[in-house]
């Protein structure tokens, strides 16, 4: 049996519809739906928008407007791991800018980009709430404190081939 691209798209659309329908009854369901889609399917695809819009009786433009407003919603698949480096003031006070520069050099990508092998998406973030133990870094949702360039290299070593 072969599965072509059209089948995959149909399967995805069906799953998006289920996710949206399950949350349709709560107040203000759109953002919880987008989080759930991204959590399960990795990103919010352009093709998902008409499906969500249909379930919620919104225009595609309204859904598009919301998806693009919030930094969390990715429009394309991310790397296998996501490394976010805090660039806010408290972490800047203890070297976060240099750490960010070190990460970009080491991975060869800028903030918001994914390495060519698909292993790591690097991003900046403004505050992880670890402001007394900076520089703070989040790797796949896990928080790390007092991250020196050497410690960052060790953390990256765990998520790069």
């Amino acid at each position, binding site marked *: 049996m072969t599965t072509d691209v059209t089948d995959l798209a149909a399967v995805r659309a069906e799953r998006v519809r289920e996710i949206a329908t399950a949350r349709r009854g709560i107040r203000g369901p759109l953002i919880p739906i987008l*989080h759930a889609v991204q959590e399960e399917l990795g990103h919010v695809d352009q093709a998902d928008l008409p499906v969500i819009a249909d379930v919620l009786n919104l225009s595609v433009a309204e859904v598009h407007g919301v998806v693009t407003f919030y930094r*969390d*919603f990715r429009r394309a698949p991310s790397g296998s791991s996501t490394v976010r480096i805090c660039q*806010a003031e408290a972490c*800047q006070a203890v070297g976060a800018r240099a750490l960010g520069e070190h990460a970009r050099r080491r991975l060869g990508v800028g903030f918001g980009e994914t390495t060519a092998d698909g292993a790591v998406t690097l991003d900046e973030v403004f505050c992880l*709430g670890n*402001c*007394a133990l900076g520089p703070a870094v989040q790797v796949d949702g896990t928080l790390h404190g007092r991250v020196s360039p050497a410690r960052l290299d060790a953390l990256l070593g765990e998520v790069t081939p």
Partner: protein
Amino acid sequence: MTRVYVPRDSAARSVGADAVAERLAAAGADVVRTGSRGMLWLEPLVEVETPAGRVGYGPVAPEDVDGLVAAGMLDGRGENLGLVEDLPWMRRQQRVTFARVGVVDPLSPDDYVAHGGLAGLRAALRTSPTAVVEAVVESGLRGRGGAGFPTGIKWRTVLAADADVKFVCCNADEGDSGTFADRMLIEGDPFTLIEGMTIAAHAVGASEGYVYLRSEYPDAVETLTVAIEIARERGWLGERILGSDLTFDIQVRVGAGAYICGEETSMLESLEGKRGQVRAKPPIPALEGLFGRPTVVNNVLSLASVPAIIADGPASYAALGVGRSRGTSVFQLAGNVARGGIVETGFGITLGELVNDFGGGTASGRPVRAVQVGGPLGAYLPVDRFDLPLDYEAFAEAGAMLGHGGVVVFDDTVDMAEMARFAFSFCAEESCGKCTPCRVGAVRGVETIDRIRSGQDREKNLVLLEDLCELMTDGSLCAMGGLTPMPVRSAVRHFGEDFQR
């Protein structure tokens, strides 16, 4: 088996608390995971229960555990910090809102009740909504999110409003750099927030509550979600709460990485499933808030202060603090600071006491040059303003603000022109785009500072910068554009030499 306490707070975990807890359990200790005491430079801080009290060890690295245990740690012996309650950092504080944080297992409802939990809600349910509202007014509690609006007055407006449904919305979109008290309270004592919101619901006649919690805090989301489930099982949420006529439930809503959603009307838009663009006021949210209904919007710390106010009476809360800043504030020491963490104390201690006495100066050992108080929109202050008392009015008079109580310390290597530029670039990145002064002004601000730093028509551009700041302050729709000039102007005013290089 010796009982040992190890924080599960994400800051403690960020420096190895989980591994420490595992090693201690392997060594035969009965490990209880708590919140953090807020002495973050000591994390992972291990506390061992002894007949005299909890003896502290920290910072403890995972590889230290076996040696400490061999030296008698589980009997409270060996090199240690002494009784945690007796540490000067703790003794100098007045912990009201944070009384249980670091002490209790945050997800143990029995622990919560054993440490005074629910006393406020039980007292509130015995009395009328009006009496609760007036008690909050009398306590002098002002919004801890930053604006400092009297909480009780807001509640009075919502109580008096007539509607089919009213809401209590907790703003836990703690996006300001240098602030982490909301996170630590939610991770360390979530039932207090739930209790505070439930008291608010009783006071104003609300039936539904939402906590808008930022996605950058996954541990807090998990802890609060579990705590709400436990509260439902215990009858602390749901129908006929604690046997009363009150019906109220809470949902956690996770933000999506937009700083502006910490602004209350933007947060309401986001809760409604829209772009987080601010609304013009009036109408105020107390009358037309979430889905157009009367809505209490309060910060985590405001709501979490309410149970103690109702349990102990408003007078005891109002007895703390100075002037029109009553009660305690939860200050957060952050950035380049030797002893960073949570300092809850009555308003009125000076900035210098906070940064030097509690904080111990910089972590780098170099001289302190600047502190930013109140988040990215707060002023940068030099050391010669360390005599400023931490109260809302004194800070406003000094062209600064307390905001959410975060204090970020910088040493003498900081370039303040660079920090002023960052204030504008952050605003440009995070502006919701609704009003022109903020959306366009922030971009022009970055450009103007770049010209100043590169020496192009420096004096003319400094005048232009001041003009731009005035326009943004007066013309922006909300505090994002309206207060971005505050860090910029304070940097120019107090650190003008950095703009002349």
